[in-house]
C-alpha cells in the first residue's frame, strides 16, 4: 500500500517548492511506493516520504537550482546521477537515494566545499545551526585530502548592515541568498560577481550591503546555509534555545514569526514559513526592528501628576488606577457622563481593544469611543459596508497570485506593506499587468523586471474623477459584465449608476484637465482592467485620506462589480491596512456608532444581546468621533479621555488644535510604551505592553486572525487588558476575565462573524479568516463568493466633488504624505531601533522646477507653511513627483508634519484629508524645530 502523503512536516525543509498540480503520480523511492503530485521534484517527494536527501543549494522557499551536486540520486533506467532537486517525478519512476556510488560522490563534493571553508565549527556563531556542518556529518566526511592552496579564507567581513553581517570567508557560493533576493523579495540587489574560483556574492555591483539596493528584508540571511549571512544578535548572543510562534506588530500584513530566545532574551525573529499571510517572508521592520521593546525609554511603572506642568510621580498600580478613577468620577459628577471617552488602538490586540470599548460603553456609560482607524481606513468601513455589506477586504493575500491585472491605487506596497508587495511583484514578474493610480512614481511603477502598463499620475484630490472616468469608459464601451450584474447585484441601483456614469461629465476627456491624466491613458487603463480576466484592486490611504475618501471606496466597489471582479480568486477590492490590527480594532466595536461586527448601536435586537451579557443598559445613540471629542474639549464640554496606544498629538491633523483640546481636559490617561507627544498633556500614564508581552490576537488586512503569544512576561507586571479591567472596576463596573482567551470567547458569543473563533481553534489551524461560523467553520478566504454579505451588491453613484483644499497664490503647492519602508507611522517604535540609519529625518520631496523657482537646492533646509501652521525640514529634489506637488513622511515628531495638515476631512467619516494640503515652501537657514 502506498504511503499517504501528509501535509509538510513542521519546520522540515522539503528542498523544493510545492507544485499546484492536482493529479498524482506514483514513484518508488528506495523501494517504497509513494503517491505525489505530478511535477514534484524527487527531492521533495523523498522528503514527504520521510527520506531526507542531502542538499546545500536547495531550500523549499526557492526554485530548484541544481548547483551543489550533493543531492544526486540514481534513477532506474537512466544514465548518470541526476540532481534530485531539478528532476521531476514521473509515474513509475524508481529512485535510489542511498548507494555506495552516491555516498562516494557526495563525500567528494563535501570534501571540496570544506577544503575552502574555515574549520572553526566549535567557535563559529552558527555552530549547531549550520547546514554545511550538518551535511558534512550526514555524508560522513571525516577528513580533507587536499593540501592548502588558493582559498577564500582571508576574505573580508561586511558589517555595514546594522542587523546582519556578511562573512565572505564562509560563503560556499550556493546562490541561495541571490535567489532569495530575486525570487522571494524581488529586489535583485544581490548577484554572483565574476566566474569560477573568483565567484562571489555581490550587493549592487560590489557595494557594501548598507550602500547597496538591499532592503534588509532578511530573506538572504534566512536562506544562507552557513554562517556567511547571519544576524549580529546570534553572533553576539549565541544560538537560540527556545521558540515561540507569534505575530508581527507593524503593518497590516500581519506576518507570522517564530521568536527565538535564550531564556527570556530575544535573539531573533524568524519569519514562519507556515504563516498564512507571509509564507516565510519578512521585511526589515518585523525581522529586525523589535529592539524598541527593551529600549531604555520604556516606561514600566505607572505615572501620575496633578497638572501637566508638574513632574511625573511614579506610583504602584493600585494608586494609579485609583487616581485615574477618582479623576474620571469627578468629571462625570461635574460635567456628566458624556464628558468622558476613549480611543482604542490598532497596535493592540483584539482582546485589549474589546475591553476598552466595553469599558467605555458599559462602565463609563457613553458611546464616546473611537479608534485610530478614524484617521486611516474609516472610509473603507463606510464604503464597503454600503456596497458589499461589510467592512473588509474581499480576498486573501494569496489571491494576487491569480490576478491578471493589478490596479494599485493610493498605496505603496513595497514601502508600507513590503511582504505583500513582494508577493505582488512576484505575480507581476510572471506577467500580470499593472495599473498604478498615484501622484507619485512609487517603486512599483518601474523596478527590476516590473514596469506598470499605465501610471495615471493624477493631481492629489482627484481620485473620484479618475475612477469615474475609468467606469465611464467601461460602461460606454460595452465592457460591463451584464451577467454578473443581473445575477449578483441590485439592478435598480445599477441602472441608476449606469445613467450617472455614462454622463458626458464623467468622460475621460471632461475630467482630464481637473485630474491631470490624459484621456487616452484613462481609456487604455479602462480597457486593461475591464478585459483582464481577473482584475484586482489594492488600495491604501491615498484613497481614504481625502475629503471624498468614502466616495472613492464606493467608486472602486462599483468598478469591481460592474466588471464582475468580485467573489473568486484573483479579483476583489482590497484595503491595505496601515497598522497591524486596524481590521481587528474596527471589528471589535471601536467606532462610536457600532458594536462588534459592525452592528449599529440603535439596533434594539443587537443592543439587547450586549445588555444581557454585560448586565447594563447601553446607549442607543452614537457617541462622538475623535474630532468631535477634540472640538467638544476645546468648547469645554469634553473633559477626560483614555487613550490606548495612540499618539494623537503627533498623528492627528492640525496638531495645534489637538494640543488645545488635550490641554483643555481635566484628565488625559495615556496607555503606551513610551512617553510621547500626547503624554505631554497627560495626567496618568499607564505602561503598556509590547507585542512580545501580549497574549491575544491580531486581525490583518485579509481578515486573518492570528495568535499573538507572550514571548516574555509583561515588563510592567500587568497585561493591558488587566489594566483596563482594573480601571473599569474602580469606576464601578467589574469585568472579570481570567485570561485573554476568555475575552475572545465573549467576542465570539456576541459577534456573528467571530462565532466559531477560539484560541484552541487558532492553535489548531494556525490562523482563521473571518467570517468563521457554522457555515464556514474554518474561516472564509474569499468573501462574497455566492452572494454579497448584504444580499445583492449595491451600486452607488459617486459624483466628483472637488476638495475645498486647493492650491492658491499664497499656497501654490499641494503636499501629500506617506510612509517609508524603514520607518513606521509616528516612529515611536522604529525611531528606537537601528532603522534610523536609513531614515533619520523626514524629508520634503520637491520637483526640480518648483525647487529652482524658489531657489532651493537638494539638502537645503526649507520652511513649509500651510494655512494651519508651518514647520521646517530638508528638501530633496525628486523626479518621483510631478511639478506642483510635494511629498513627505510623518515619522519624526521634530519635523511635525501634522502641524501643517488641516482639519479637512472625509464627508462621511471625518477621516482627515492628509493627502491634500496646500502649502508654500521657502528656503530657511534654521534647523528643524518641533511644534
Amino acid at each position: 500500500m502506498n504511503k499517504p502523503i501528509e501535509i509538510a512536516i513542521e519546520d522540515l525543509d522539503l528542498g523544493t517548492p510545492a507544485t499546484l498540480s492536482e493529479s498524482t503520480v506514483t514513484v518508488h523511492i528506495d523501494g517504497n511506493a509513494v503517491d505525489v503530485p505530478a511535477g514534484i521534484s524527487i527531492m521533495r517527494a523523498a522528503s514527504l516520504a520521510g527520506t531526507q536527501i542531502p542538499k546545500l543549494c536547495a531550500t523549499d522557499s526557492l526554485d530548484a537550482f541544481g548547483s551543489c551536486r550533493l543531492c544526486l540520486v540514481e534513477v532506474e533506467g537512466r544514465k548518470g546521477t541526476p540532481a534530485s532537486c531539478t528532476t521531476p517525478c514521473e509515474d513509475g519512476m524508481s529512485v535510489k537515494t542511498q548507494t555506495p556510488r552516491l555516498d562516494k560522490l557526495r563525500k567528494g563534493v563535501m570534501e571540496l566545499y570544506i577544503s575552502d571553508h574555515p574549520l572553526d565549527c566549535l567557535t563559529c556563531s552558527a555552530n549547531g545551526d549550520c547546514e554545511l556542518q550538518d551535511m558534512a556529518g550526514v555524508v560522513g566526511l571525516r577528513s580533507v585530502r587536499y593540501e592548502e592552496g588558493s582559498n577564500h579564507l582571508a576574505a573580508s567581513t561586511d558589517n555595514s548592515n546594522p542587523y546582519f553581517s556578511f562573512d565572505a570567508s564562509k560563503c560556499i557560493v550556493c546562490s541561495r541568498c541571490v535567489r532569495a533576493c530575486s525570487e522571494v523579495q524581488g529586489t535583485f540587489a544581490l548577484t554572483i560577481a565574476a566566474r569560477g574560483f573568483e565567484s562571489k556574492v555581490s550587493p549592487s555591483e560590489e557595494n557594501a550591503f548598507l550602500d547597496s539596493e538591499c532592503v534588509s528584508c532578511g530573506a538572504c540571511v534566512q536562506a544562507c546555509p552557513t554562517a556567511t549571512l547571519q544576524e549580529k544578535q546570534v553572533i553576539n548572543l549565541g544560538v537560540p534555545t527556545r521558540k515561540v510562534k507569534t505575530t508581527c506588530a507593524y503593518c497590516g500584513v500581519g506576518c507570522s514569526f517564530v521568536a527565538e530566545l535564550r531564556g527570556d532574551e530575544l535573539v531573533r525573529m524568524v519569519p514562519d514559513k507556515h504563516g498564512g499571510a507571509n509564507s516565510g517572508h519578512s521585511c526589515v521592520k518585523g525581522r529586525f526592528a523589535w529592539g524598541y521593546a527593551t529600549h531604555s525609554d520604556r516606561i514600566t511603572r505607572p505615572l501620575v501628576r496633578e497638572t501637566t506642568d508638574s513632574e511625573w510621580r511614579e506610583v504602584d498600580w493600585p494608586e494609579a488606577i485609583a487616581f485615574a478613577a477618582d479623576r474620571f468620577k469627578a468629571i462625570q459628577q461635574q460635567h456628566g457622563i458624556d464628558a468622558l471617552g476613549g480611543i482604542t488602538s490598532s497596535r493592540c490586540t483584539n482582546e485589549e481593544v474589546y475591553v476598552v470599548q466595553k469599558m467605555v460603553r458599559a462602565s463609563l456609560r457613553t458611546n464616546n469611543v473611537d479608534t485610530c482607524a478614524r484617521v486611516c481606513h474609516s472610509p473603507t468601513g463606510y464604503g464597503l459596508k454600503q456596497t458589499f455589506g461589510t467592512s473588509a477586504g474581499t480576498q486573501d493575500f494569496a489571491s494576487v497570485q491569480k490576478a491578471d491585472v493589478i490596479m494599485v491605487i493610493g498605496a505603496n506596497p513595497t514601502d508600507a506593506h513590503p511582504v505583500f508587495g513582494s508577493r505582488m511583484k512576484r505575480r507581476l514578474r510572471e506577467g500580470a499587468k499593472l495599473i498604478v493610480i498615484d501622484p507619485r512614481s512609487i517603486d512599483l511603477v518601474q523596478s527590476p523586471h516590473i514596469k506598470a502598463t499605465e501610471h495615471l499620475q493624477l493631481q492629489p484630490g482627484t481620485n473620484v474623477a479618475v475612477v469615474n472616468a475609468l467606469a465611464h469608459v467601461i460602461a460606454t464601451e460595452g465592457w460591463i459584465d451584464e451577467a454578473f450584474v443581473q445575477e449578483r447585484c441590485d439592478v435598480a441601483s445599477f441602472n441608476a449608476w449606469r445613467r450617472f456614469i455614462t454622463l458626458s461629465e464623467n468622460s475621460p476627456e471632461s475630467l482630464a484637465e481637473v485630474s491631470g491624466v490624459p484621456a487616452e491613458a484613462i481609456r487604455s487603463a479602462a480597457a486593461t482592467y475591464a478585459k483582464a480576466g481577473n482584475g484586482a484592486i489594492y488600495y491604501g490611504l491615498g484613497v481614504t485620506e481625502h475629503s471624498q475618501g468614502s466616495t472613492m471606496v464606493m467608486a472602486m466597489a462599483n468598478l469591481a462589480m460592474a466588471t464582475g471582479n468580485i467573489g473568486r480568486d484573483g479579483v476583489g477590492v482590497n484595503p491595505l491596512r496601515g497598522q497591524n490590527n486596524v481590521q481587528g480594532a474596527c471589528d471589535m466595536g471601536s467606532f462610536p456608532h457600532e458594536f462588534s461586527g459592525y452592528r449599529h448601536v440603535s439596533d434594539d435586537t443587537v443592543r439587547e444581546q450586549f445588555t444581557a451579557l454585560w448586565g447594563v443598559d447601553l446607549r442607543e445613540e452614537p457617541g462622538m468621533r475623535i474630532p468631535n471629542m477634540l472640538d467638544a474639549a476645546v468648547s469645554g464640554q469634553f473633559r477626560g479621555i483614555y487613550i490606548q496606544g495612540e499618539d494623537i498629538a503627533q498623528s492627528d491633523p492640525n496638531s495645534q488644535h489637538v494640543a488645545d483640546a488635550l490641554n483643555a481636559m481635566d484628565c488625559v490617561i495615556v496607555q503606551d510604551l513610551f512617553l510621547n507627544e500626547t503624554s505631554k498633556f497627560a495626567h496618568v500614564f499607564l505602561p503598556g505592553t509590547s507585542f512580545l508581552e501580549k497574549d491575544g490576537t491580531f486581525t490583518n488586512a485579509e481578515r486573518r486572525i492570528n495568535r499573538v503569544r507572550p514571548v516574555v512576561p509583561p515588563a510592567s507586571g500587568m497585561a493591558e487588558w488587566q489594566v483596563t479591567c482594573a480601571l473599569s472596576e474602580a469606576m464601578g463596573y467589574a469585568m472579570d476575565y481570567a485570561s485573554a482567551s476568555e475575552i475572545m470567547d465573549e467576542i465570539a458569543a456576541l459577534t456573528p462573524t467571530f462565532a466559531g473563533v477560539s484560541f484552541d481553534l487558532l492553535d489548531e489551524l494556525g490562523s482563521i479568516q473571518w467570517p468563521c461560523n457554522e457555515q464556514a467553520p474554518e474561516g472564509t478566504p474569499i468573501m462574497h463568493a455566492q452572494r454579497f454579505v448584504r444580499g445583492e451588491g449595491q451600486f452607488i453613484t459617486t459624483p466628483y466633488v472637488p476638495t475645498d483644499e486647493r492650491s492658491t497664490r499664497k499656497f501654490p503647492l499641494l503636499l501629500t504624505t506617506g510612509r517609508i519602508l524603514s520607518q513606521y507611522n509616528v516612529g515611536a517604535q522604529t525611531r528606537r531601533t537601528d532603522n534610523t540609519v536609513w531614515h533619520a529625518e523626514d524629508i520634503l520631496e520637491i520637483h526640480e522646477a518648483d525647487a529652482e523657482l524658489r531657489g532651493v537646492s537638494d539638502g537645503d533646509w526649507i520652511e513649509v507653511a500651510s494655512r494651519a501652521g508651518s514647520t521646517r525640514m530638508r528638501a530633496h529634489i525628486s523626479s518621483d513627483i510631478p511639478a506642483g506637488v510635494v511629498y513627505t513622511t510623518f515619522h519624526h515628531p521634530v519635523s511635525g508634519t501634522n502641524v501643517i495638515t488641516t482639519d479637512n476631512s472625509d464627508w462621511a467619516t471625518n477621516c482627515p484629508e492628509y493627502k491634500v494640503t496646500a502649502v508654500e515652501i521657502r528656503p530657511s537657514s534654521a534647523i528643524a524645530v518641533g511644534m
Partner: protein
Amino acid sequence: MTLDYSQQHLIKMANQIAGNMPSRENVPAQIVQHMAQFWTPPMRADLKKIAENAPDSFSDDVLAALALQD
C-alpha cells in the same frame, strides 16, 4: 454671530455631507438619516441652534434637513 472653532466645524461637516450625498434625490432626508446614524444628539442640537442664528452659513439642503428634524 461669532462662531467658535467647534461651531464652524459642525457647519462645514453638515454642508460637506449635503454636497457629497451620492444620490441627489431627496438630499435633506438623506442628511437626516446620516446624522442620526453618525452624530450625537448634542451635535445635532448644536447644529440646529447655530442654524437659527446663522442660517446663511448653511446650504439649502442642510436647512431643509434641520427642518425635517423637528
